[in-house]
């Protein structure tokens, strides 16, 4: 696959993941505002989230969206503002992808596992 073709595909991945993230952010904010109301403790949050696979699935999608979206944007910033190209920019993208995936999914697991 040519470099141009890879970049073309990544552009659409970034746009589609942005649409997914926009929906996730709206749902996340709405749930937060609804759930908090008169104040909410950590224990109360965990009581609601633990064992909820629907909650887990929603935030897993959120994490996957971030893991697809963020590295492409960060690579563009690295290339355009700091002149990082080639192997180094790929490495930055990989670091962000795996970092977000591991930390994000671990966090999701942390709040749903009972």
């Amino acid at each position, binding site marked *: *696959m040519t*470099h141009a*073709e890879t*970049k*073309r595909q990544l*552009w*659409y991945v970034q746009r589609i993941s942005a649409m997914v993230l926009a929906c996730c952010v709206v749902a996340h904010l709405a749930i937060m505002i609804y759930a908090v109301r008169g104040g909410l403790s950590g224990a109360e949050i965990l009581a609601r989230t633990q064992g909820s696979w629907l909650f887990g699935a929603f935030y897993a999608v959120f994490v996957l969206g971030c893991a697809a979206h963020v590295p492409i944007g960060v690579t563009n910033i690295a290339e*355009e503002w700091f002149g990082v190209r080639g192997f180094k920019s790929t490495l930055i993208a990989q670091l962000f992808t795996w970092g977000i995936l591991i930390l994000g999914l671990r966090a999701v697991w942390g709040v749903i596992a009972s």
Partner: protein
Amino acid sequence: MTKTLAVSVWRGKEEGGFVSYEVPRRDNQTVLDVITHIQRNVDHTLAYRFACRVGMCGSCAMTVNGKARWTCRTHVSQVAENGKLELAPLANLPIVKDLVTDMRDFFDKWARGLGQFKGSRTRKDEFEKVRPDSKARMAADAGIECIGCGVCYASCDVVSWRPDYLGPAALNRAWTLVNDQRDTQLVERMKAVAGDAGCHSCHTQGSCTERCPKQLAPTAGIAGLKRQLMTTPAGGK
């Protein structure tokens, strides 16, 4: 007493500095008139470029008070701030001397984006019928009046960040040809304009559309290329 303008003009090449001149203020004076006055009456060694003086040839574009503009149709009254003008060569292009830039990169990129028309008919064939109200022809017409002045190219941040980026003018040209039903190079052209040297690097910031003296919208053309490329691979599979 005659009113005067305080004009700062870039002198030199990449290395150089601004030199101040005093120029008489006249009615309906354009920025190009100001430069011509300096060159003819104050300093004959000042280099600048112009040809038609009526907004057709696209050769007199410069940076006026920090923004790229066509100088022949920019009135001093539109741009002078407190009777002051600062004139510099176009950004994102190498400086030849004073206000003259080397436009080779700019036009080479038109060629790299396959900006040449290539049809299939000869002079012996019938004319192809193109409906002026067809969607494609209207899209082509919207971008066809580009005069190649380089204002969009000098105003584009992506050009300054990615030296291989084709730039708004070349991509606008490609878009007009993508919408020309007579042209035969669609597949090759889509390959040429894809990826980070092409339309996918555009951030839709819109400086090109904001500054285009012909009120064209390269941003819209680039968005059109991105839409078209959603279903067309950039080749090399």
